[in-house]
């Protein structure tokens, strides 16, 4: 291998014991694996990753190896099946702790301690280890044991009530939205901790509360309450500084275009793009404050105009007039979007039971390196023998004993 090839896989040689499940924890291992680390997912059919049990399933047939929900954060990894309620399995896990540079877990607080694998124990086995834990609300505090998912944290953090119409119940974002914020901070802090370990030789323990990490995306609104005692709430598609601003119907059923006019110059361009119909010249729409006052009437007039046209035609038309506009893409359309394809935003890998399917890339491209996609997400326990034999150097007899003791499931 040339030096450059080595560098492309800059984490080759880095060893990660990934005891995480669901979303926020496993994504850390994914980013390290993408750049060459050996990442071993430790999981069990006796206590499967909840994502393995959630649809969509291949051919609509449920099965621990059939969920395309699980696969995304877990490509490029190995899977070791280990039933951690079994003491012999925990001995194996401890050997992997000794082996690893980085380990992560995302069970509820206290679970790893109960198994004798909390940070204080892990540190005895491997003093330099970087050990990260992430759970809903952190390892300490009165609500640490809350059981739930990212959507609950979206609710608890104040995000959920920020999405919807002012006169209706909150709609909330699609999905476990706090996950998509928390896992950014999670990846950043582990990458920084790796550099710190390189510089000082010191590992450490990281406790990331998904609620706390999420709240930093609402910083200005939290300050607004703390200072001005105002509590921001949902306002449909209206915007503080842009008008018109919203989603408008297009030709056909359920076709929409998002449009944002950010200042009065753009308003002129927008009117021109519409062909300057008479109503656009009405003084009540001439300035931002007056448009804001007459916003619902304005939105109605715009909608009547946009609904005559194809959404993709309109996007190009508005953009050619330097007005921000974009088609509200359905999943099928996003799948084919030429810009996302150009990045590319997804790659296809062949999964053992699902077959060829898509994996998302992250939002960044690099001028000198690319992630390596060498493998789809593993089947549960797909690499059990490889890990025990190649990594931990256990003999066939030892492996057979573990299996007989039902530790490997």
């Amino acid at each position, binding site marked *: 291998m040339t030096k450059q090839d080595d560098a492309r896989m*800059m984490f080759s040689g880095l060893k990660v014991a990934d005891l995480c499940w669901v979303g926020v924890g496993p994504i850390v291992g994914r980013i390290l694996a993408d750049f060459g680390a050996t990442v071993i997912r430790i999981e069990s059919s006796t206590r499967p990753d909840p994502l393995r049990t959630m649809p969509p399933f291949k051919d609509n047939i449920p099965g621990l190896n059939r969920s395309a929900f699980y696969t995304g954060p877990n490509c490029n990894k190995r899977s070791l099946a280990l039933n951690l309620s079994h003491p012999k399995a925990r001995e194996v896990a401890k050997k992997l702790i000794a082996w690893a540079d980085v380990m992560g877990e995302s069970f509820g607080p206290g679970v790893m301690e109960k198994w004798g694998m909390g940070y204080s124990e892990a540190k005895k086995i491997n003093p330099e280890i970087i050990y990260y834990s992430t759970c809903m609300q952190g390892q300490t505090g009165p609500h640490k044991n809350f059981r739930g998912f990212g959507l609950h944290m979206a609710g608890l953090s104040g995000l959920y009530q920020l999405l919807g119409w002012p006169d209706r119940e909150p709609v909330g974002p699609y999905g476990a939205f706090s996950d998509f914020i928390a896992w950014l901070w999670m990846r950043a802090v582990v990458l920084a901790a790796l550099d710190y370990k390189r510089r000082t030789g010191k590992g450490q323990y990281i406790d990331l509360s998904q609620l706390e990490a999420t709240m930093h995306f609402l910083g200005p609104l939290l300050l607004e309450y703390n200072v001005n005692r105002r509590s921001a709430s949902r306002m449909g598609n209206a915007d503080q500084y842009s008008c018109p601003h919203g989603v408008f119907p297009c030709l056909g059923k359920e076709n929409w275009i998002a449009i944002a006019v950010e200042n009065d110059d753009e308003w002129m361009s927008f009117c021109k793009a519409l062909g300057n119909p008479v109503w656009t010249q009405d003084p009540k729409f001439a300035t931002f404050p007056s448009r804001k006052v007459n916003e619902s009437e304005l939105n109605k007039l715009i909608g009547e105009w946009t609904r005559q046209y194809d959404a993709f035609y309109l996007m190009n038309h508005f953009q050619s007039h330097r007005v921000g506009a974009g088609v509200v893409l359905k999943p099928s359309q996003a799948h084919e979007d030429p810009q996302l394809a150009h990045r590319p935003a997804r790659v296809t890998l062949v999964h053992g039971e699902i077959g060829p399917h898509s994996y998302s890339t992250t939002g960044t491209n690099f001028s000198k390196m690319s992630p390596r996609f060498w493998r789809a997400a593993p089947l549960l326990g797909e690499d059990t023998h490889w890990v025990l034999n190649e990594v931990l150097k256990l003999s066939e007899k030892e492996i057979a004993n573990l299996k007989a003791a039902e530790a490997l499931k």
Partner: protein
Amino acid sequence: MNTTKRLLEGYRVLDLTDEKGLLASRFLADMGAEVIKVEKPGGDDARRIGPFYKDQVDLEKSLFWFALCMNKKSITLDITKKEGQGILRQLSRKVDFLFESSPSGYMASLELGYEELSQINRQLVYVSITPFGQSGPYRDFKGPDIVVWALSGFLHLCGDPEKPPVRFSFPLAYFLACGEASIGALLAHHYRVLTGEGQWVDTSAQNACVWPTMDSRALWDIFHKDQERAGGRRYREMPSGVMQMRFVYPCRDGYVQLYIWGGKMGEASNKALQAWMEEEKFDISGFKQTGWPFGDLGKITPDGYAKVVDIASTFIAQRAKEELYEEALKRGIMLAPVSTIEDVCHNRQLRERGFWVDVRHDELSDTLRYPGPWAKLTETPLERWERAPRIGEHNNDIYRGELNMSPNELGYLMRLGVI
């Protein structure tokens, strides 16, 4: 004196971003990097964004700026002027990272693009944040927040079916891009450690916002079926049919979220909810009629599930969110309030975890409460929480102290309007 080392101590960052990119270098600043925000003379445009301290509209009182620029330094510099470009090139020699969020091609037009600056500092990690990326068919498209959400595929999934798709009433699309940009910066840093070379990190907000579309991508990918928006509900494709899962339930004083879900976690939660209802003498015969063992969602029909949801919603409607949450915590029910911003500022868990930090603003003769440590680290705790800088607050430190400018030179540049 506190001698604790910081995670990213010793690394330096130039931040040339606008309001869309300001959060990216905050990730690094919180972890101890020295971040220098480059503002245009007179003050950055992001200072014009509200809300404002006590509603006083003032460049030094933007709470938006306060939140996104804490832990940073500030210098003023007009990079559209030749002299300013020269100074930026000098500064780029002295830093490890540079963040910018101008339209693709703009920095190069000022001769401050990656190509130019990497000639001066080959170790520089140069991070760009744009709506769609540095190349491709949408490269020159305008990408305000709602447009990025639309083209990522996320907007389509949000909203009530009978209303148009709806976005967050606070711009978050670029914040996700900022997170990816900071991760990209650190990945490029690891590459630099190995090779001695910097590189260009090209962040696309559209691409960053694809992840939250989650299982809707998978549903299309393996099923060729488009997920439709369903408000505080979700349609799940189950072998027995389409199950309408409900997340939001009105309660006496607001809303809560409850998951009636499958798997082991779901089973434990569902059973705990049932036990509470029984203790309260609530009629749950409808639960039992469904014959659902409470775990596997494959063992209940969509109609049976709807019945369970209906009974739970009646129970919840009679109670207040605080009471529901307290019981949920005690009993292990997957239920939590839909907090208002006010609620979350009084959240007990956050208070007891020491999440809030009080930051002194001498100029305002006030102390403001900020969100603080977003992770707890044993070796390098996140404990620097300093107020955002005033306009050009560090001009003397950087220009005189670092670039060794004479007072006369600095004065001249100020007269020219460069600083």
